[in-house]
């Protein structure tokens, strides 16, 4: 794929070992993110989007998880083969915005002390002694405080000096999410992973938060991954979107084109099941989400697919290039491959 991608996931497969047996969760996943680009991973509950994110962040517990095949290239180095110490260094360049702003901030610390801790820890390079020394040196703390105030004002927080003295419960949900965004921006990260950061927010606040996030991606030359189950939000913020079903990417492409004209039967079904303002009829997708213990042979979507063919039962489809930048993993498009 392209040379300038910040993150590239190639043919990734992840299994989970449990008492009941081996869950084959991620199956042959390919993903690519460039700087200044926001890429969406969309899918329903249990499709493997959070597993992918956690793996990139290096916080997926292994065991039970096991990477069976594939690689995750971050600035050209494979994260999966790095030593623990080097991995720790790379982690500093990957920022994370969690889902729930209500529970992600420690309620017993002020916003200021939370930010200062994070900034000073980042500067002390993993050494606890250096951290304590810096945390109690007036000059260092003053510098860190200035940086913290600067970060808060960069995420549109009014009166950052006063907010530094407040506790998380004194802030609204939208403000807390912006504080989390500020902590994510500490130390110029290269990749930002946002795990549904706006699900707990209301639409008007959500819109503002998304706008701000987009601005930061541009300004800081970040590569962004945005995990969501809300296709409307994906349309709002993501340049490109990967639609996942049961651990595989079924379709990818520029978000607007993908939603206006979905190719894969699953994407089409998903778009159809959302109630629309145009009041066109909506219907769900029949059938149940698959059981990872015994995934079906062939295409993982075929038991629920209305357009399945004989071949779908036997082999899973490779990714066909249907149009410029649009890839679909479905046998229906085998002859259209350009």
């Amino acid at each position, binding site marked *: 794929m392209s040379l300038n991608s910040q993150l590239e996931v190639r043919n990734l497969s992840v299994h989970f070992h449990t008492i009941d047996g081996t869950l084959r969760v991620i199956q042959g996943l390919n993903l690519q993110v460039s700087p200044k680009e926001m890429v969406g991973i969309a899918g329903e*509950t249990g499709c493997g989007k959070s597993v992918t994110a956690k793996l990139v962040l290096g916080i997926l517990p292994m065991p039970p998880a096991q990477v069976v095949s594939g690689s995750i290239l971050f600035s050209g180095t494979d994260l999966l083969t790095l030593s623990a110490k080097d991995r720790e260094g790379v982690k500093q360049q990957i920022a994370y915005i969690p889902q729930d702003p209500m529970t992600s901030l420690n309620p017993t610390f002020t916003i200021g002390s939370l930010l200062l801790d994070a900034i000073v820890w980042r500067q002390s390079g993993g050494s606890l002694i250096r951290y304590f020394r810096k945390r109690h040196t007036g000059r260092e703390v003053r510098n860190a405080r200035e940086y913290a105030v600067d970060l808060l004002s960069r995420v549109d927080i009014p009166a950052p000096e006063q907010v530094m003295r407040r506790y998380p419960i004194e802030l609204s949900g939208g403000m807390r999410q912006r504080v989390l965004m500020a902590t994510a921006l500490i130390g110029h990260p290269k990749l930002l992973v946002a795990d549904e950061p706006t699900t707990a927010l209301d639409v008007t606040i959500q*819109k503002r938060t998304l706008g701000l996030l987009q601005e930061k991606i541009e300004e800081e030359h970040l590569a962004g991954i945005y995990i969501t*189950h809300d296709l409307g939000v994906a349309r709002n913020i993501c340049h490109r979107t990967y639609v996942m079903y049961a651990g595989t990417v079924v379709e990818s492409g520029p978000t607007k084109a993908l939603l*206006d004209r979905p190719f894969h039967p699953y994407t089409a079904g*998903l778009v159809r099941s*959302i109630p629309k303002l*145009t*009041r066109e009829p909506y219907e769900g997708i029949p059938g149940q989400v698959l059981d990872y213990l015994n995934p079906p042979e062939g295409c993982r979507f075929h038991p629920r697919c209305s357009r399945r063919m004989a071949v779908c039962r036997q082999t899973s489809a490779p990714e066909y290039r249907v149009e410029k930048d649009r890839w679909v993993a479905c046998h229906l498009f085998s002859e259209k491959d350009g």
Partner: protein
Amino acid sequence: MKPDILEIKRLRKYFFRKRRIARLSFRSKITVIRALSECSFKVRKGETFCVVGESGSGKTTLARTIAHLYEPTSGAIILNGEPVSHLEGETLKSYRRKVQMVFQDPSAALNPRQTIAQSIALPLRVHCRLSGHERKQRVRELVGLVQLPVEYMQRYPHALSGGQKQRVGIARALAPEPELLLLDEPTSALDVSVQAKMLELLSDLQDRLGLTYLLITHNLSIVRNLADHIAVMYLGRIVEHGPAEGIFKNPLHPYTRALLSAIPVITEAERQHIPEEITLDGEIPSPTDVQKNCGFVTRCQDRLPACRANAPPELTEARSEHWVGCYHHGSAEGVVV
């Protein structure tokens, strides 16, 4: 015109919190949280009345007050023309039989130690005099009504998916044959492909049983598809209410316009149906602050000096049946609460 099934008049619900002024002090002060103030509207029989608004705007408090899970601070709730207040004992029981509620989180609403059949049978034990055999028959009927397989009756909630649990929640609410169903975000915990089937079931049940729905949601796309009437809430007040068509085609209150413009649309065709983009800045005031003026003034784009100086505006009928509380549309000065 269909008769009104429910009318609420100037409904208020305040919560009081007593707090010591300092850790070891005996003196305390009382903070008042104005969860609902001056809410009035009418719901017609057989229609779907939607309440929309942000979290913390009082939507759930409204539903819970109507269900009589909370005693209203003041104001009146009128069901089928009869005012109901200070309900106790038998009268409360007969009221609850007519008004049932479906809760937001189906996993938390079901007792994990009761089978599905037991959960659905409980309201029948409380409200209906049935023999054991009749009750079993009725439970079976209800399970069929919400399109669940009969073999699920003996299972426990943990063995069901989110969508199936919500179906049990609906079956349980339908057990005493209510007239009004209060649905508090019934699909917000579900995936979109499951949500579509749930909404289908709800419309189907409404047609078959002639139910009236009071639907609380923050998803405006669902509202567009189901609602006959809409009420928009902001900081415990209804700022606009009226027919769905009118609100979507011609929103009057600036908050409603901002809300509609922020709907995350999926397709290009939908974009034509929402007003031009409005981004709100400013922060939402806390519900513990005394509201001396219109609560939206901190974020409003076309605020007047009068909006800041005067008491919260009263709702006025700007168009036929379309009520709005905004000085731009000739609202009179309201009551300071």
